[in-house]
């Protein structure tokens, strides 16, 4: 690596470590990162430094009620997970289809060849956390999940299908889909439904002809979840819609 290239990369790595790399630069940077041991070492060092920055913040005592809120929220989570686990009707996909899903996620994780759409929204958590790390997370969920089931696209995309894997230990689900339109002008939002309301939780990313997302929720305990396709003119079409009843 030339000195100029080294400085350029260090600037990008620094920005990446503190969460200030522009969204447009992230895919290319992460692609480079996936294939460069030296760069991963540098990122590891800089990220360790960045993780120390919160220690510089002046201490403020948290209110006592906050402890009660947090403990109660986690207790509710634990209770719901137990109920969902007991009541869920499991449908195991075929070994062949599961292998295809795992291979797909592995391919995108190791190649780092992430073609990412629709990263212009500045509130996209995934883009800030790092897509590469999320792809590894997706692989991990797919490998260790204790509940998996197949899903089909809506009538708008009858050829679309996919697999959902939920890992109780991490509390996250991995969704992999095929058969969706790869037109770059389109973007796909993953949403969850609770109390009759839908809220977006992630983007659906594309790589090597497949689509994937990590949903950090117990999707089994929700009223449902799905994917909506957004066209350039704002037109929205639900391409996946599933409810607790279906799994």
């Amino acid at each position, binding site marked *: 690596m030339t000195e100029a290239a080294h*400085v350029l990369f*260090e*600037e990008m790595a*620094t*920005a990446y*470590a*503190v*969460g*200030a*790399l*522009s*969204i447009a630069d992230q895919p290319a940077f992460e692609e480079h990162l996936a294939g460069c041991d030296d760069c991963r*070492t540098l990122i*590891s*060092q*800089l*990220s*360790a*430094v*960045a*993780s*120390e*920055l*919160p*220690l*510089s*913040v*002046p*201490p*403020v*005592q*948290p*209110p006592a*009620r*906050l*402890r009660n*809120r*947090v*403990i109660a*929220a*986690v*207790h509710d*989570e*634990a209770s719901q997970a137990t109920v969902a686990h007991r009541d869920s009707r499991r449908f195991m996909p075929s070994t062949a289809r599961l292998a295809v899903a795992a291979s797909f996620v592995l391919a995108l994780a190791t190649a780092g060849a992430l073609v990412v759409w629709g990263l212009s929204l*500045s*509130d996209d*958590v995934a883009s*800030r*956390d790092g897509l590469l790390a999320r792809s590894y*997370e997706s692989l*991990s969920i797919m490998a260790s999940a204790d509940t998996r089931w197949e899903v089909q696209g809506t009538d708008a995309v009858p050829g679309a299908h996919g697999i959902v894997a939920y*890992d109780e*230990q*991490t*509390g*996250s689900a991995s969704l992999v889909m095929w058969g969706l339109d790869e037109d770059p002008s389109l973007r796909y939002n993953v949403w969850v439904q609770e109390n009759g309301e839908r809220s977006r939780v992630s983007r659906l990313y594309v790589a090597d002809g497949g689509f994937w997302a990590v949903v*950090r*929720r*117990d999707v089994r305990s929700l009223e449902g979840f799905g994917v909506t396709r957004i066209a350039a003119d704002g037109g929205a079409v639900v391409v996946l819609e599933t409810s607790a009843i279906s799994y």
Partner: protein
Amino acid sequence: MIEEDIQHRSLLSRVSGGDETAFAELYDLLAGRAYSLALYVVKDAQSAEDVVQDAFVSIWRMAGSFDPRRGSVKGWVLTVVRNRGVDHLRRLSARPRATVDIGTIDVGGSPEAVWEEVVRSVDSELVQDALCSLPAEQRQVIDIAYFRGLSQQEIAAELSLPLGTVKGRMRLALSKLRTSLGGADGSDVR
């Protein structure tokens, strides 16, 4: 610090197995830092509580995915809090003040409270000293980037600086911090 992290990892391991008592213990150890960080980021006490709750529920869900090779439990937890705080700012599409006025916040309690013993530690002084040793303009870009979640381009626009200047200041700042905190060899940042 090593003993502290061993304790945190032991608790987190139990949390990943669904141990709510261990979760409460971990919360008690880290809530002071977490709330301080959340308040520093979002500048609003009620929002800070929401951020901390959201972060700790996420930690409950994600405890099993913690990778000890990537740093300490405390660093991981605070990174989750920081990310949730920045997410909150983005959802609001509002930009906070540059600094939080601690004097306006009712901290309550006594200075001898347990939380303060947890929060005030040698490592925070080291980090504060390292940050204070930076030129003000370098410290500023790091502060805006990390605690407000602005990109280099957004920082350049806000400070009316060339993008290259922001990139250079950020690179020099983190490089100096890496040296100050003893992590130049990548083995440990302290």
